[in-house]
């Protein structure tokens, strides 16, 4: 089969690899019909995530058709059209039993601090991902769901991570009716978090970024007020002025490890890999939210330490809430919101790229060329 293969930082290529095999009785093999590049894939691509091995295939956002099932699989049949959450989880461990699917204890031998994720380094379990023609799906009875007939393929694809994570970010904010919510980062997750904040009753939603075309999307797609932090001497002072000098009730960090806006933080984290991530957006969130407010973090960070302004969070009495999104928990409600017309996920898709052009796709997304917001990968053979 053809698959995207990592060759080292900033380098990927298409290679022929063997079709994955059933390795566990509850595995399925899925023929990928659509995959996406996630902003967090760029952390791997840029060499920031420890134990990202040459030869692995990325891709934790994908949908497809069941090609083969293991002997203990009961809930899927060959030919089923499925969407697969980015989390790999067993459904039966201490954490899964409590709904913390992203923190499953039975799928990642390499680390206890993170669960299993498709195509996301050996630190996240060493599984190949879905930017390929076929992918191994462990715990096939637990993770994947059959895509409803009425649901568009691209909408289903965005349910596997970006939409669910954005919605989860708003949920973690504990938004009360009329609250002012500020979202750092106008990428796919930030846009969905902003849109979701309204569903939870926000009174104002403010999105902050430096890319004007993404802020334009935040205004039209997510009905948000926007601030380009490049226009401000100090984004935190600007936020205070915008909120009667109290601060926002809720701040959501939807930027994560490669946030930009501070030369030293960005270079030490993203280029020199001396931090687990560049916490610029997180520090701005901590300083922009009001005392006693909530900071929600859904932008991804690596396992190393980061220079976070923890003292400010402590002295302001903030509630910090964060996790990888337990995607499948969000699906019933999100499917209902899509069906009711409150959410149209694929409005944010800007690029549809054949698998053979995946290297260009990564560069376009990474370098923010061509007003790229969300690129989708189409394995043409399927």
């Amino acid at each position, binding site marked *: 089969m053809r698959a995207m293969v990592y060759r*080292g*930082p900033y380098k990927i*290529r298409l290679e022929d690899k063997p079709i994955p095999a059933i390795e*566990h009785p509850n595995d399925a093999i899925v023929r990928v019909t659509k995959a996406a590049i996630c902003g967090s894939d760029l952390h791997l691509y840029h060499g920031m995530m420890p*134990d990202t*091995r*040459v*030869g692995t*295939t990325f891709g934790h956002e994908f949908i497809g058709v069941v090609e083969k099932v293991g002997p*203990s699989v009961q809930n899927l049949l060959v030919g089923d059209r499925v969407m697969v959450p980015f989390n*790999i989880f067993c*459904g*039966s461990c201490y954490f*899964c*039993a*409590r*709904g*913390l699917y992203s923190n499953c204890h*039975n*799928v*990642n*031998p*390499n*680390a*206890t*601090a993170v669960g299993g994720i498709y195509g996301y380094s*050996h630190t996240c*379990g*060493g599984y*190949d991902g879905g930017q390929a023609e076929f992918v191994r799906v462990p*715990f096939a*009875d*637990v993770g994947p769901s059959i895509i409803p007939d009425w649901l568009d393929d691209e909408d289903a694809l965005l349910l596997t991570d970006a939409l669910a994570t954005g919605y989860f970010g708003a*949920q973690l904010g504990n938004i009360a009716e*009329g609250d002012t919510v500020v979202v750092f980062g106008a990428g796919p997750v930030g846009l969905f978090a902003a849109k*979701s904040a*309204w*569903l*939870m*009753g926000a*009174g104002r939603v403010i999105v902050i970024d430096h890319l004007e075309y993404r802020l334009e999307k935040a205004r039209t797609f997510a*009905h948000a007020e926007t601030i380009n932090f*490049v226009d401000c001497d100090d984004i935190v002072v600007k936020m205070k002025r915008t909120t009667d000098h*109290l601060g926002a009730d809720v701040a959501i960090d939807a930027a994560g490890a490669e946030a*930009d806006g501070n*030369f030293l933080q960005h*270079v030490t984290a993203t*280029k020199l890999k001396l931090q687990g991530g560049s916490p610029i957006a997180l520090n701005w969130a901590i300083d922009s939210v009001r005392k006693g407010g909530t900071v929600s973090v859904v932008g991804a960070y690596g*396992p190393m330490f980061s220079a976070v302004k923890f003292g400010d969070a402590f002295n302001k009495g903030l509630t910090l*809430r964060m996790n990888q999104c337990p995607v499948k*928990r969000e699906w019933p409600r999100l499917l209902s*919101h899509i069906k009711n017309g409150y*959410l149209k996920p694929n409005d944010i898709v800007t690029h549809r790229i054949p698998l053979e052009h995946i*290297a*260009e796709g990564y*560069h376009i997304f990474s*370098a*923010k*060329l061509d*007003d790229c917001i969300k690129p989708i990968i189409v394995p043409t053979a399927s």
Partner: protein
Amino acid sequence: MAYTAQGPIRPDSDVLRARIPGWGVDLPPQPPSDQEESAPVPLPEAHWEFPDLQPENRPRERSIEHKMLTPVFGTAAPLKGLSGAIRRHAYAKYSETRAAHWLLLLGADRVDAIEHHLASMFTLRPDNPITETGVKSEFTHNGFSSRVGRKRTDLSHTWIDPILVAGPWILFGVAVVRGGGTLAARLRNRRN
């Protein structure tokens, strides 16, 4: 507004409901569905108390914070070469709380890349920095106009990015050439 007990005036909910499709549909009494369930219940689809074990066909590295090898694991790229030895040591010796664990893994990633780049030179498909970096898209997807005249904060460090990304590779190449030259000179001197 002076610093009084009064908070800012909140927007009118009815106006928001009329303006934004779906505004407030997830307000209480909708139950929250974010983090922990109150009553721990395994998923009904999980028809096991503990999953079957995936066969361990070759020794699989694991965090020393785990009691056991997890019943399911990835097999995307088994350990091999010098990078594999470094990774094996990082997993066997250091827990996830130790910086040494992560720094060794990051170091092994760079060694892994060098190993594969060198090995690719002896294949019919050597690594190609032009095609593999996707840099062609700079010319096909508006590389110039995506940057110039735009208020992008990343432009402030664009000048240093190639130095930081390519610099270590260039230094490594120089070291290899110089080391090779020194070795060759010593061999010549020994023969003479």
